[in-house]
């Protein structure tokens, strides 16, 4: 692996909200960029804090964001081999305070996010938390927490680095059935961006029912755009201007509740179109529950224009209204989503 084609950063936010970082810089970057890179976890975790403000009873965790990377035709001369970009976030509550371990990984391989996430969540994050108790007992007042955390982040970074390039496995979760509660359409033509959400009618009881299973329609509508911009910013900070991101998967969780967002895209005549689905695990009483592969196939059919959009949306979920779209990139549109779709009554 060429060292130039690997981006790796690990950040820990303690229960006192102090953020510690350890970043693998394979190439010399300007001071300003390094300063900005250190602020990345705050930016990536932005919507997370927003959801906390939205409903403080539920603490949503952004588990992972996966993006493929495409080559930018304008920068043909400096070609990058980087193919995938992952953001992983592990949240662990200790003594009523949240701690976060966040990683971004840019790699030339299609990485296996599950194994990387498990290493972070079950080993690195736990060892930081456990180490605090153990070292406080051993060293008492002489225990230097900062040095300890930096050391553990270095261990974590080495562990993640070692796991990169592992073949992607098929997990049983991928055979799980999901129910789609919304479709997000995104178009980008130069600087003109359009994002729309298709979901249940406002008077459909399913709309309010699923408000308990997601942070909010508002947040789900803005997440793909939000994270795509963050990844693009990150790549620019690492001076990777020859590639641009396409969101593939976002996974959120709250206690035992899980929300998955999957997206497919196509670029034609310099216009990028993408369609994504907001999925929640099967509800037994509902029809239209399918495996992820079914949804991906339907999204490809819409993108390839082989099937009628409205008809395909109804095949995905007959309760989603394919005719009324909610704008997700204007203040007015987002205001409507907040007011009408996120209304619990």
């Amino acid at each position, binding site marked *: 692996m060429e060292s130039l084609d690997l981006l790796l950063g690990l950040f820990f936010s303690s229960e*006192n*909200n*102090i*953020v*510690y*970082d350890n970043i693998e810089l394979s190439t010399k970057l300007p001071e300003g960029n390094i*300063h900005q890179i*250190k*602020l990345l976890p*705050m930016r990536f975790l932005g919507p997370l804090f927003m959801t906390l403000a939205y409903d403080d009873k539920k603490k949503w965790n952004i588990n992972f964001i996966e993006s493929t990377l495409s080559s930018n035709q304008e920068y043909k001369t400096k070609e990058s081999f980087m193919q995938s970009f992952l953001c992983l976030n592990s949240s662990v509550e200790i003594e009523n305070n949240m701690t976060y371990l966040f990683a971004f990984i840019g790699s030339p391989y299609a990485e296996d996010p599950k194994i990387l996430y498990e*290493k972070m969540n*079950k*080993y690195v994050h*736990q*060892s930081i938390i*456990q*180490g605090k*108790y*153990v070292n406080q*007992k*051993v060293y008492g007042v002489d225990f*230097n*927490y*900062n*040095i300890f955390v930096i050391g553990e982040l270095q*261990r974590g970074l*080495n*562990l993640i680095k*070692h*796991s990169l390039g592992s073949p992607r496995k098929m997990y049983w979760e991928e055979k799980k059935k999901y129910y789609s509660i919304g479709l997000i359409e995104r178009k980008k033509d130069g600087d003109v961006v359009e994002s729309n959400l298709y979901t249940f009618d406002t008077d459909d009881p399913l709309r309010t029912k699923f408000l308990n299973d997601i942070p909010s329609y508002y947040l789900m509508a803005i997440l793909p755009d939000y994270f795509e911009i963050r990844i693009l910013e990150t790549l620019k900070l690492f001076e990777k201007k020859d590639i641009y991101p396409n969101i593939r998967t976002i996974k959120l969780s709250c206690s035992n509740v899980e929300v998955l967002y999957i997206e497919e895209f196509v670029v034609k005549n310099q216009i990028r179109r993408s369609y994504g689905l907001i999925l929640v695990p099967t509800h037994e009483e509902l029809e239209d529950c399918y495996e992820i592969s079914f949804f991906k196939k339907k999204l490809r059919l819409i993108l390839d224009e082989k099937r009628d959009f409205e008809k395909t949306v109804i095949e995905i979920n007959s309760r989603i209204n394919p005719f009324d779209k909610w704008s997700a990139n204007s203040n007015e549109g987002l205001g409507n989503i907040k007011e009408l779709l996120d209304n619990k009554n």
Partner: protein
Amino acid sequence: MEKVKFKQAFKIDDKRLLWNYNRITRMFKNSDHVEIIAKFLINQSIGFSLNRILDILNYYKPIISKNKTLLDFAFEWVRANKIRFEYKKFINLGTYEDPNSAIDDTIFLFFLDYDKYIREFFIKNISEIEICALYEIFFNPNQVDSTNMNFFLKKNELRVHTIIKENEKVDTNIFTLREGLSSMIKKDYNELHPSKVQIKSEQQKNDIKVLSTITKFDGTMLERLIKSYCFNKQKIVEKELENSISSFLSSFLKFGQIYKYKDFKEKLIRNLTDSLYSGLPENYKFDSLDILISDILVNFERTLKNQKLDGLAWIKDLNPILKDIVIKFIDTL
């Protein structure tokens, strides 16, 4: 990994083992139960003398959980050999750059789920020393000395701790695993990859050379503290602030080395200013910080400027003054 999955991954032939155990029972009808199990384990070549096995079995017998037997424990001892064999095959692949990566990765891959699994064989309040000792017995028999169990556990007391908080045992399994297994993994790594060990030691020699030429105070912690404050607007914990300042000062001033104030004054002011500035987001403005810091340090300079002190003494003297400066700085934000 669920229990069943774990058993499948490291399968032992229960039927054959039971047949063997029954055969030994028939052979030594007059021996007591623990002795028979010890003889059964000798038969399985687990690498200890009979007396040592008896000592270990007698120690763990009273702390085995109600739904498990001493024979179950013995079977797990045999399974541990299987796990060790698989683990050694894996580490032999040699993809690790250093022993620390090998320790973390193999603990995650082989022993983290094992830890959950094996703890089910014991009573809930088993101490971490006992678990740690078990790992050494099961996986690193060559390192377990010939003294009796109580001496062996006593030796581990300083390294492994059982932490109780509000009447609840704090989970410290990763640290117990590291204490119990690190020396084995390191030893295996060094034996299997001698060439990598040599390269690493040469690199370390070079690193030492670099360390001896430290030229600035490292204010990364301070910078991070200010940054977190500006973003979250959360009150800074005093302990965090003290740690950050200690870290800043100790990055340059070393215990056992003698300094004069003028040797590091300029560096101290410049590096402190830089660290505080770089913690600020773009929208914050703060001018002439370096002048402000040197003004505050004037009194200190008057009393101590001609003294020659050890690095540690300078750290102790400067710590409260810098703390005061940083607090004043934060108050202005």
